[in-house]
């Protein structure tokens, strides 16, 4: 068990590639995505309807160092294109850690 940081980003699916690129740049190559979540935000309602506005929900577990760097890269994307980014603490259970 080790304590980790959890980053969660909910944003327009058009930002998806920018966000995962930012994560990768910060050394976070492992993440999970829930596609087509529905959102109600500043920029109106984002449903999974035909109008093509869809949100993706990205979850990544990382170390505090990776986190710092990721935030710096993700913040300007969200500022420009909208969305939400949350940081919280958690314990990770899986014992074999192949990468750091």
């Amino acid at each position, binding site marked *: 068990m080790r304590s980790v940081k959890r980053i969660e980003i909910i944003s327009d699916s058009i930002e998806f590639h920018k966000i995962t690129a930012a994560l990768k740049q910060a050394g976070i190559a492992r993440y999970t995505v829930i596609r087509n979540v529905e959102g109600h935000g500043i920029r109106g309602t984002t449903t*999974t*309807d035909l*109008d093509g506005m869809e949100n993706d929900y990205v979850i990544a577990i990382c170390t505090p160092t990776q986190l710092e760097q990721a935030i710096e890269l993700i913040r300007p994307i969200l500022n420009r294109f909208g969305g939400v980014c949350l940081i919280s603490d958690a314990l990770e259970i899986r014992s074999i850690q192949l990468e750091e």
Partner: protein
Amino acid sequence: MNASLILSNILNPPVLFFFLGMLAIFVRSDLEIPAPLPKLFSLYLLFAIGFKGGVELVKSGINQEVVLTILAAVLMACAVPLYTFFILRWKLDAYNAAAIAATYGSISAVTFITAGSFLQQLEIAFDGYMVAALALMESPAIIVGLVLVKLFTAPQKKHAAELGSEGTGVDDAEAFNWSEVLREAFLNSSVFLLVGSLLVGILTGEHGWETLKPFAQDLFYGVLTFFLLDMGLVAAKRIKDLRKTGIFLIAFAILIPMLNAAIGLGLAYLIGMSQGDALLFCVLCASASYIAVPAAMRLTVPEANPSLYVSAALAVTFPFNIILGIPLYLYGVNLLWY
């Protein structure tokens, strides 16, 4: 005559199901067509018209009429966003004006398809190469819209806004990543599938059509019906956004399609299109994109408000065209052609 055209347009299943979808939202029924089923219908429709268009293009070949039609289409796709931009600037900032202008410069494939099935019902012929015009009108407006933003917005202003924020500023180069813009314009999924299916239709011709006909033709009307049911649901949900939008944009979303259709009508007449083709051309000019262009705008002009450009196209212009516009434009064609 106009009223009877409207009636014969309304009294066919796809349009009635569009009403049914809107009604479901108004009476607060829980009817919904869950994702990704609408996407299935839309992929199918793009495939079917693209493929059929390609097959017919092989038959008709490329003659002067085809070339003129296509030139006219590209001309309108570039001109419409230009003049609508200046109309919109009257009340809106440059970002929103450019985004809305791009939306109206591009087209709505489903409006085109509905017009096609209206013509079929009235037994008025039209040519397969109109699908090529459709495909070519999707993208230019996106480029024109961005050029307008580039020209009419002050880059430093944007920068200032960002300095106020905590984050690092986005430099202008990143903001106008042209390769991204071009990809969004020419390789977005609608354009790609439509053009791809058109090419497959051209390559496989009559032979390919025979094997795919039961799928691409027999289901067409039914899938369109379901798709319009969903469009009714989506359009009606968007209607409440119009309150924020204001009367200016609502008027714009009804009058501009009519203006565009009228200009299209004139061009079609000059070129000497057939009646059926002329109607489809008017419909292309009059319709606005509510999927491809909005996606491109969210990516490239995030400063604009999606609920303005999506709602105008989807909640006003689309229903207007589907219900009144199509028969109205045909009335215009009938007036001019005789």
